[in-house]
């Protein structure tokens, strides 16, 4: 969570995901349309729910994982892509999934 450089009048050590109140977004219209969900989005959401039901992942852990995505990658990923990256990161760090298991599953295409 590398602090980003601040604009004039902005907090000096803001983390890149902490976007509320940033002045350059002032007067930017709020999108009020519901975003459509892709099959990928739904699968990621379903995975998160199953992991939570089994006590393997808290929403707070997911948020921490999302926030730890480096800034450049964070803004290049979609909302649910961030979730997928964070899910993998947290599960790997907790030892729920091993790296070779994840690589094998990805090479089979089952997680694409």
């Amino acid at each position: 969570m590398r602090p980003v450089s601040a604009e004039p009048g902005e907090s000096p050590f803001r983390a890149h995901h902490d976007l509320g109140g940033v002045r350059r977004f002032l007067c930017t219209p709020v999108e009020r349309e519901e975003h459509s969900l892709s099959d990928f989005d739904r699968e990621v959401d379903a995975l998160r729910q199953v992991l939570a039901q089994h006590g393997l992942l808290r929403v707070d852990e997911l948020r921490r994982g999302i926030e730890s995505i480096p800034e450049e990658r964070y803004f290049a990923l979609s909302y649910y892509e961030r979730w997928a990256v964070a899910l993998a990161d947290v599960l790997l760090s907790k030892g729920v999934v091993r790296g070779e298991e994840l690589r094998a599953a990805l090479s089979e295409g089952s997680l694409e």
Partner: protein
Amino acid sequence: MNGFKPGQRVRVRAEWPERHGPVHIRTPHYVRGREGEIAAFLGVFPNPEDLAFDRPAPPLPLYHVRFRPEALWPAPVSGTEILVEIFAPWLIPL
């Protein structure tokens, strides 16, 4: 459980744990170091800063804190009210 009462003036701690390593902080950057007042006690919840790392999470009082826009931004939109959920350890009584 905690001494804060509705209407009481508070200051949010001007702390930046982000500078010292991986953290999960629910207190937005734009209220840190700023003054507001307690609007409501919302209940007691496990500390998300600990839950985020799967650590034992002591229950903490959570408050709605009301800020005047002028306390946060140099040229705010008038007539807006800012309510932020903030856990007790982030608040200093004034």
